């Protein structure tokens, strides 16, 4: 087995492990406000797929720029989109 294949195998096992961690974590009871923390293993998995399978780090610099740009614009999209809801006071509806 080549070194590249061994690294891919390690990345695959790490991905399955992280998937298992978030699956198991979903059965632990904690506040609904903190449930989005279950996204953390998923974000690590995204990074791992990017590094191991898509070879972001060793790829052409232009493609690295586009991948970083995608993350920046996603942050802008989600940040601007949720700025109002996250900072607005929620009042109970009275009839």
């Amino acid at each position, binding site marked *: 087995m080549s070194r590249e*294949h061994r690294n891919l195998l390690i990345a695959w096992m790490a*991905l399955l492990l992280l998937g298992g961690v978030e699956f198991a974590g979903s059965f632990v009871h904690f506040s609904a406000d903190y*449930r989005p923390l279950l*996204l953390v293993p998923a974000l690590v998995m995204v990074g791992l797929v990017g590094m191991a399978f898509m070879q972001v780090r060793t790829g052409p610099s232009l493609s690295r720029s586009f991948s970083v740009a995608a993350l920046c*614009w996603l942050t802008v999209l989600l940040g601007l989109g949720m700025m109002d809801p996250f900072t607005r006071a929620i009042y109970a509806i009275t009839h």
Partner: protein
Amino acid sequence: MSEEIAPHVHFQYAGVRHQADTAIAGMWLFLATEVLFFGGLILVWLFCRHWQQEAFDAGARETLISFGSINLALLVTSSFVYAAGLAWIRTNQVQWLVRCCWLTAGLGGTFLVLKVMEWSIDLSDHLFPAGPFKVPGPEAGGARLFWSFYFVATGLHAVHMAIGIGLVGWVALRARAGRFSAAWYTPVEVVGLYWSFVDIVWIVLYPLIYLIGRNP
């Protein structure tokens, strides 16, 4: 003129690697637009759950976590298999690339079959957001929003999967015909980027759909 440099290399490139890097950068630019496309869906999830958290989570509790989890394992494995095939073509082992492509397409096809089975169960459980709905009472509105998100997100992902399976099958056929070698395999790299991106989308959708709303 392109033949003077090397087969497959067009005149404006200095060599095979230069052309391949350009193709890869082009694919990344396309994937950046896809990130924003699916980013809109993530924004919808954030917005709807923020305003109607309990009802939205009540909808999420009706999802079939076993299907979602098996599909996560299938997709992660398929990305690994395709990347292994890509590593083999770099050492000119074309037959291994062909095998990996067919296995990848098979895993992707299994994903889609499971997805259709899951949709079928969801529909028979009255979880389609229009018409008679399973979740009753004051939580029905937010739960319907969740299931709208669910069908749009999984439907769009399934369309991307189907396109990806077609592309991987095309790579397998071209590889079997001897069109790729260690000297030139740019389409294999570009299709691999797309396939891994489809995998990434499911990695993000999985907790949003199946895990976060499921508070035991």
